[in-house]
């Protein structure tokens, strides 16, 4: 996919970041374009979630600069966490809390209908199943009509059917014109759904391109396939 004619939503230049003084990555340059489905992949500890947080300006990088399109609305589904029992809140109340100040409750009702949350809208959030909770977080992320939907390993811990349903929903949103920026450890998902895959390894972007380009890249095969396959011939 040639992105030259697509506006840039997020631009990261010469990003460097360390964790407890150990360098996580250095000199990372990345653009996120409008309308694309971009997946960041990487082995455990490669810093893909940290890079996502830096791109979303949730944490400042140690070096480099991140800029985003003015007035960019971002919907975010963070890495999976379980809501705390101590905070009493229904699924519907979570959506109401997140809605823009000038919007009405109709927006919440619409989201509940669209994302089929009716069966658990009045349920306490800490009692929701993994699939229900993730669907709620996705609906919440869409409440301010974002241009970019960012997701951090959204299917972690979900069963296969819930994973499939979730990816289908994201693909549908992408078809409707939403840009997707996802961090995933699921290589099968990245290669089947994404338009562009960026692979992080050993402190930098080791390869990027369409899923086919990445899969055929010797560096990708060496870092991602051979690392788990002793008889691999790409060494």
């Amino acid at each position, binding site marked *: 996919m040639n992105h030259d004619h697509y506006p840039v939503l997020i631009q990261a230049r010469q990003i460097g970041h360390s964790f407890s003084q150990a360098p996580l990555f250095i000199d990372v340059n990345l653009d996120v374009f409008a309308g694309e489905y971009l997946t960041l992949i990487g082995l455990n500890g490669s810093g893909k979630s940290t890079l996502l*947080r830096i791109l*979303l300006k*949730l944490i400042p990088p140690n070096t480099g600069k991140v800029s985003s399109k003015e007035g960019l609305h*971002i919907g*975010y589904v*963070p890495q999976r*966490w379980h*809501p*705390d*029992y*101590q*905070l*009493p*809140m*229904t699924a519907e*109340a*979570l959506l109401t*809390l*997140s809605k823009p100040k000038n919007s009405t409750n109709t927006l919440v009702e619409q989201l509940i209908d669209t994302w089929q949350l009716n069966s658990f809208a009045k349920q*306490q959030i800490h009692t929701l199943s993994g699939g229900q909770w993730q669907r709620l977080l996705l609906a*919440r992320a869409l409440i301010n009509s974002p241009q970019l939907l960012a997701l951090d390993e959204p299917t972690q811990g979900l069963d296969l059917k819930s994973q499939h349903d979730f990816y289908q929903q994201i693909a549908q949103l992408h078809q409707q014109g939403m840009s997707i920026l996802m961090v995933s450890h699921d290589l099968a998902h990245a290669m089947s759904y994404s338009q562009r895959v960026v692979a992080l390894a050993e402190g930098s972007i080791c390869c990027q391109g369409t899923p086919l380009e990445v899969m055929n890249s010797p560096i990708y095969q060496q870092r991602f396939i051979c690392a788990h396959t002793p008889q691999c011939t790409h060494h």
Partner: protein
Amino acid sequence: MPDFIWLALAGALLITLMSAPVGAFMLWRRMAFVGDALAHTTLLGLGIGLWLQIPIQLSLLLVSVIVAVSITRIHQRNNLSTDTFIAIAAHSSLALGMLVVTLLPEARIDLMGYLFGDLLNLTMQDIWGLLIASLLTLSILYRYWQGLILTCLNAELARLAGHDTQKLNLILALLIALIIALSTKLVGALLITALLITPAAIARRWSQTPIGMIQGAIVISWLAIAIGISLSWHFDLPVSPAIVAVLFAGFIASRALTNQNKL
């Protein structure tokens, strides 16, 4: 009923208007020990107030604010475990407070009064002070409600929604410091920490919404205070321990009635 009982009930109601919502936030943020640590630091505030001969409530407020801000900063920088700092700050300030008080031979400090306060000795001036502080607390919570609740849920979601979570953490820490500094002299370190946490923990078992939990905690606090004062009056018991005991009984009863395992 004598006037001092009415004043105690009015003062208690005003304290619960602050302690119940802030206590609920402490539960939601898992900050129960912050209140305990700040209550310990008030002895140092007391000692410094006597040493420098400044109003006690001012020195209590200063020390509580310094410790609360330090806890927030350390939590944000993440270069020292927060619970380690809380434990060090609590016990060190308690020890330093005792040393300062001991080194001031002219200072006569009532340690029982520090621990248990004197709810039955409130003056109209105290009531006015508590009224202003509770109005201030409630207006701040109302102003920052959405951000504070979102931060309890997930700080990243709150940040991406445009809330300054560092500022919100600081506001919460300052509110805890304000309540503890104001209330320690009036109701004692033991009662104020119990009033912050126990009513919210009881109310949680019956609540479906954050507001419902706060309202429940206010009612529970006030009932416990009224029952505690009544027990104290009829059986000649110290007021604050009686109230804390009633709260504890309420917690056990709520646990038995709702049959839930979670704290």
